[in-house]
Each structure stands twice: as structure tokens, then as C-alpha cells.
């Protein structure tokens, strides 16, 4: 794992963003299954009897416990933020800045921003591709993230190229933060974090 450690050293603070993306992606998946399992199996509620018994009694309030679990997970994300001093960035940043914050929008709305790819070297980089993960959110939901263009024939020496990011939020998407990553073949060790806040329907984008 020496190679992995060395690469992560170069990735620097972005390690935390990959960890966070892993955490939030997994949380989104498990949220989907909570409903599925509830429908298929329901709560146990088999009773207060000891092993071997068949009596019935109610279990604890599932919703309260689920919310408690969410709070614990959010606390971990907050601690990760504090530890790595990662603060939300402006709507348009450079790829080497490591973060793009899409402007807030409503469910059913569209958010767009520009990601700038800089090539600070004296050599052009041919054949560059970009790929985006969906933006993961709470309650098991995701928002697709589109890139335009997803592929560059050439990234010129000492030059910059804009890439447009676009997120079309589904109409029934819940409010709250969403996270995703953009990976560029020219700098695969440094994924760019993309964030979006879906505003509550009654509030409005800020």
C-alpha cells in the first residue's frame, strides 16, 4: 500500500473529500433500503417475552432512532469539515482549487457552473476526458451531473479551458445538500468536489 499512501499524500486535503463522498454515497444507498425493508419485513414487534416466548409488545420509535442516526452521521461530516478546513467555494473555481459549488436551486430547477481546467505546464496535454458521479443526497436520492464537453482533444500549454457543469434537479427531490465528484484524466489523483444545495420549496434559493 506504499503506492496508495504516496498518492494520497499528493492528493492532500482531497482525501477527506473522497472519504466524505464514500460516506454520503453509502448513506444514500442505505436510506433507500430502509423503506424497502420496512415494506418487506416491517418492524419486529414480536414482544417483550424472553427467548422462546411469543408475547407481543411495541418496539422503540423507529423514526426517532433513524433521525438520531442521521444526526450522528452529520456530526461526523461536520468533524471532517473542521479537520480539513474545507469551506464552500464560489460558484466558479479552477480545477486545481478542488471545489465547485453550484448555485442553490429548487427541486425541479437547474443549477449550472463553470469548472476551469488549467494546464500550468509548458506542454500541451492531448486527449483529456472528464467523468462526473451523480450528486448524492439524503433519503437515497441522486441528481445527475452533466459535463460539457466531457472530452477535450487538447489542453493547451499554459492555457485554460472551461467545462460547463449542469445539474437538473428532479421535481420531487428533497431539500438539502448534495455532493459529487468530477475526475479528470489529466489529474486523476485530484478529484474535484461538486456541491449543490436544493432549497426548500417554501424558502427559495439564497
Amino acid at each position, binding site marked *: *500500500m506504499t*503506492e*496508495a499512501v504516496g*498518492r*494520497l499524500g499528493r*492528493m492532500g486535503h482531497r*482525501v477527506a473529500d*473522497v*472519504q466524505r*463522498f*464514500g*460516506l*454520503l*454515497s*453509502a*448513506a*444514500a*444507498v*442505505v436510506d*433507500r*433500503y*430502509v423503506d424497502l*425493508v*420496512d415494506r*418487506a*419485513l416491517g*418492524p*419486529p*414487534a*414480536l*414482544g*417483550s*417475552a*424472553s*427467548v*422462546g*416466548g*411469543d408475547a407481543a409488545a411495541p*418496539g*422503540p420509535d*423507529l423514526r426517532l*432512532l*433513524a433521525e438520531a*442516526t442521521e444526526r*450522528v*452521521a452529520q456530526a*461526523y461530516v461536520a468533524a471532517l469539515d473542521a479537520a480539513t478546513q474545507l469551506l464552500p467555494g464560489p460558484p466558479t473555481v479552477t480545477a486545481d482549487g478542488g471545489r465547485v459549488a453550484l448555485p442553490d436551486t429548487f427541486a425541479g430547477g437547474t443549477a449550472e457552473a463553470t469548472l476551469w481546467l488549467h494546464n500550468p505546464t509548458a506542454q500541451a496535454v492531448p*486527449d*483529456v*476526458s472528464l*467523468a462526473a*458521479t*451523480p450528486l448524492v443526497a439524503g433519503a437515497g436520492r*441522486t441528481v445527475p451531473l452533466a459535463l460539457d464537453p466531457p*472530452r477535450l482533444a487538447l489542453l493547451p500549454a499554459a492555457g485554460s479551458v472551461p467545462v460547463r457543469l449542469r445539474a437538473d434537479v428532479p421535481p420531487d427531490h428533497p431539500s438539502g445538500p448534495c455532493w459529487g465528484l468530477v*475526475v*479528470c*484524466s*489529466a489529474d*486523476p489523483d485530484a478529484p474535484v468536489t461538486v456541491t449543490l444545495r436544493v432549497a426548500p420549496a417554501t424558502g427559495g434559493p439564497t
Partner: protein
Amino acid sequence: MTTTAGPSAGPAASDVPFAERLAGYDRAAREAAREHLADPDLSPHLVEPAGDYLARGGKGLRPALCLATCEAFGGTVEDALPSAAALELLHTAFLVHDDVEDDSELRRGEPTLHHRYGPALAVNAGDGLAVLALGALRDNDRRIGRRLSARVLAEFDFMARQTVDGQARELGWQRDNRTDLTPDDYLDLIMKKTCWYTTVLPLRVGALVGSGGRADLEPLLRFGFFLGAAFQIRDDVLNLVGDTRRYGKEPLGDLREGKRTLILLHLLAAASPGDRDRVQAFLALPREQRTDGRVADLAALVHRYGSIAFADEFAHGIARSAEVSFAAAFAEVPDSPARRFVADLVPFMVDRDR
């Protein structure tokens, strides 16, 4: 059948070190599973191959998680032993069939069942193990009562459906040569094909039995998924960088099979168009044309694009979630050796080298 005393038996149980405790749970479940093969009416052509993997000794994580959780929630090892035996039998059945489907060569450091006995006897042994697991679950009626036993059976039924559905998805992705998958697709897949039977079901059934059916199971679903997902991604990484003697499977087997691991998905996303074309061309090859040289080329790309480091860190985030969600899932459970054992299983499963 008779029950076997596990780690909870004996006055020194609270002082048992982690590895010894794990071995004790494993031994108890394995012996209980093997008793279902001890029927003199069964053909040796079934008993011998079906008992082969059980005799090799795996890590024993699944039954240990089930038995320890049962103890932590107030039950005994004996209460959950039929379920742990069923889990071990079903897990072994999945392994046998999985090895045939992937045409794997090694399992636990020895030839796979279909290489040792031929595919026909191996597939039949896998069927036999699954059937014997049903018999093990019937023992629950006597031990824990019919209502709780029925609920445990429902948990097994749901788990088995998820597992075979997940396996079908993975095989379908490989057959259809899908290269448009996201981390979300991957996590959804491993929730089905790995997490349910590796962590979620052992935790939920252990808690159900130990609590007499009173435990809240949703936090255990969350904890189980985070633990199982971190475990599976670690397994994917070990397949690329692990020591074969310790890991027990052929190295680079996942790449050769074209498995859609998080590592491969990252490579497809991060590679330049030219390199991505090379990866896609490899994945389009029939298995017999995926030579050692071509697999080594693909492995070199995986290293060059940092795909292992990415998967490792992604799993780290999930592993930290497992630690946090353990605290939530076991919040109402008093401190005990069994509770501490489950807590210790988290780093053991996600930081392992075998």
C-alpha cells in the same frame, strides 16, 4: 441435533482475547453446520464435496457476528446457533456456485470445488448445502419459539433474494459489458450481493434472537451496510495488492473476470480516452483471451490512475460511518465482552490483509 457450547460458555469468557473468541464462534457454527451433513443416508458424493469448504476454515466472520450480537442483546450462543449454522451452510453454498460462475481456481488457498470434484458434483453440493440450511433453520422452532423462528426465516428469505439478485446483476453487467456504471450502482450492487448475508442479516438475526424479538433493527441495517460495504471494497483492493498466501484467492482474479468493482469504475472514469478504449477492449474480450499479459497491463493502468488509492479512501469514509453507526445500533446494549467483540470486528473487517 445437539448444540455446541460457544465462547459464552465457561467462567473465563469475559477474558477471552479477540482472535480466540472469533475462533470459538467460528468453531461452534462450523460444527453445528457439519452436523447437518452427518446423516448416514446421504451419499458420500454429496457429503464429501459439501463438507470440503467447511473443513478448510474461513474467517468465520458471519456466524461470529450473529452469535456475538445475540449474546450482546441478551441471548446465548446456543439460542442463535441454528441461525449461525444456516448462515454458514448458505454462505458455503454461495461460495461453491460463485466459484463455478467465475471459474475461480483457488478458495482458501486450495483448489476450488469444481476443480477438485468436477462442475457437476460441485454444483450439486452447492444445491445440497442450500437445502441443508433450510433444515438448520427448522431447528429454530424448538429453540426460540415459532413466532420468532418465523421472523428469522423471513429475514433469511429476504436476504437470499437480495443476494441472488445482486449476483445476477453483477453477472449481467459483465455479460452485457456495462461501462457506464457509477459508485451508486456499485454500492447498490454490494448491498445486495455481499452486505445482506455478510453483515446485515447476521446482525439483525442475532439481535432478534438475543432480544426475544424486541430489538430495533433499522440501526442494524445501517451499521451492517456500512460495515459490509467497507469489507467488500477492502476485498476488492486485496485482490489487486494482497499477498496470495494470506488472501487465499488468485491475484488479479477480479480484473481477469472483468468484475465491476469500484476500482474498475474509477479507472473507467479517470482514464484518458485512449486508455479507456484499451480498458473497454479488454472487457470485450472473451475470458480465454484475457491473458496474463493483458491482465497485467490493466493492473498497471489501475495503479497509474490511482484507482486503488481512490477506492481505499472511499472505503475509509464508509468504515468511519460504520464506527459511528455501531454506537447508534448498540446504544441501548449494555457493555459486555460480546458487545466489545462486535466493536472490535469493525477494524478487523475493514483493515484486514486477508
